[in-house]
């Protein structure tokens, strides 16, 4: 509807860490083209349009494999989001008596499955992080035990943007080949370079709808060769393969892909990943770093009134900035920004109580502004102006 379009025009979207907006036009075009011209079920028949649908899915795996330096595209199972991928990795890969290590900056998509596993006899060790969300790799080494089965780490915090030392942790696990290294790349796939070989990642969980510019309902899990024998599937059903058997296939990717996939979403994801590959991660990163740096600099001018969390260094964080305005609750600030300046952001705990405990903002939470590739310097200046206005108004109220 035209009215809805108008609302979009007048807002400033700063909630890209929740989901990126807008999407490249090619993403929307690919979804329309699939539904108008193909529309068939991939992998379920040999007719032309089913094969065409299958090609879209296959090309999506190939594009993702190129992006993450994965040799075999069939090592990627497509899922509905990073949460599903993490649940497969954690619930499918950990057994009673196993020990698992994670950090104090994790999202509930990691912590909730781990807390359930803990009640089933999995030992959980949470390595503390600094109040800025930084992890010391050596602390992970010290937490390793004989029965450690997995280390699961976020690549970057969704609360503070802090980038965790994934490569360094991967390096220290090289002499423990039996320990699976699972990385939650929900905030970083497409935003930061990821190389599963260089980082010694065994399991890479990612979402499609953030920095890969795909639609919601898309994501995936990379599983290193051989590990599919150790990670059970959470869902069983039709895969279009081995139909004569009532047992779930044990090979990649079918083992983890039961039921008709979200082909229209995957078509969009394919275009989104192609956009990332064309632009290059380095270019996207440079742009987000520049915008983040500008915003952090604007916040520094308000340091007497605004508390900023995280590294406060654009080179050490994603385009995510959490802050609190002294004397204003996070939710009041967010309401003010939307009602008076049309700024859309996210206040609260961001589904990450553990991370908020680490940075000292539990339970009140923070205001989070998360920038994206399509934001401009003017958007950042507008965000800073809105902050200055609220700080000033708060001062006037007090006097």
């Amino acid at each position, binding site marked *: 509807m035209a009215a809805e379009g108008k609302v979009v025009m007048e807002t400033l979207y700063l909630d890209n860490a929740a989901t990126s907006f807008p999407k490249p036009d090619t993403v929307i075009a690919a979804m329309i083209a699939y539904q108008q011209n193909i529309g068939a079920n991939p992998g379920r028949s040999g007719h032309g349009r089913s094969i065409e649908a*299958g090609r879209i899915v296959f090309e999506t795996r190939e594009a993702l494999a190129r992006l993450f330096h994965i040799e075999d595209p069939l090592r990627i199972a497509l899922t509905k989001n990073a949460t599903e991928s993490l649940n497969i990795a954690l619930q499918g890969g950990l057994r009673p008596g196993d020990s698992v290590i994670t950090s104090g900056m994790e999202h509930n998509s990691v912590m909730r499955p781990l807390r359930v596993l803990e009640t089933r006899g999995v030992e959980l060790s949470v390595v503390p992080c600094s109040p800025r969300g930084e992890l010391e790799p050596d602390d992970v080494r010290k937490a390793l035990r004989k029965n450690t089965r997995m280390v699961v780490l976020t690549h970057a915090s969704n609360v503070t943007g802090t980038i965790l030392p994934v490569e360094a942790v991967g390096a220290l696990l090289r002499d423990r080949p039996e320990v699976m290294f699972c990385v939650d790349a929900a905030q970083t796939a497409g935003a930061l370079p990821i190389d599963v070989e260089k980082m010694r990642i065994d399991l890479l969980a990612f979402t499609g709808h953030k920095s890969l510019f795909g639609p919601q309902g898309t994501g995936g899990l990379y599983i290193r060769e051989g590990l599919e024998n150790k990670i059970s599937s959470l869902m069983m059903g039709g895969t279009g393969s081995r139909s004569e058997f009532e047992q779930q296939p044990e090979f990649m990717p079918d083992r983890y892909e039961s039921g008709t996939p979200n082909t229209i979403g995957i078509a969009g994801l394919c275009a989104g990943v192609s956009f990332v590959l064309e632009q290059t991660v380095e270019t996207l990163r440079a742009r987000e770093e520049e915008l983040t740096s500008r915003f952090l600099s604007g916040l520094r001018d308000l340091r007497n009134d605004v508390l900023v969390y995280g590294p406060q260094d654009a080179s050490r964080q994603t385009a995510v900035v959490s802050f609190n305005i002294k004397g204003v609750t996070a939710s009041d600030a967010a309401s003010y920004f939307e009602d008076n300046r049309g700024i859309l952001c996210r206040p609260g705990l961001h589904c990450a109580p553990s991370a908020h405990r680490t940075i000292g903002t539990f339970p009140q939470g923070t205001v989070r502004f998360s920038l994206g590739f399509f934001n401009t310097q003017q958007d950042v200046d507008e965000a800073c102006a809105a902050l200055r206005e609220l700080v000033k108004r708060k001062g006037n109220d007090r006097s």
Partner: protein
Amino acid sequence: MTTHNDCAVVLFESVSHALGAEKIIKGAGINCKLIHVPRHLSSDCGICLRFCADDRERVEALLQGKLHFFEIKFL
């Protein structure tokens, strides 16, 4: 109706593998087509890759070690 007496097919464990193989074989300039698996070869609902029987050795060599397949059958 065409007959496929001079054709062979590669059978795979999944459609993803068949699609991957098609890329490799087409990329080498060999004519091929993804078709329904003929009923007499398998009860599976999947697809297989049909090619000219003369290319059998090349097709096998191209896929060997690169992509897992079940077998090659003459039609």
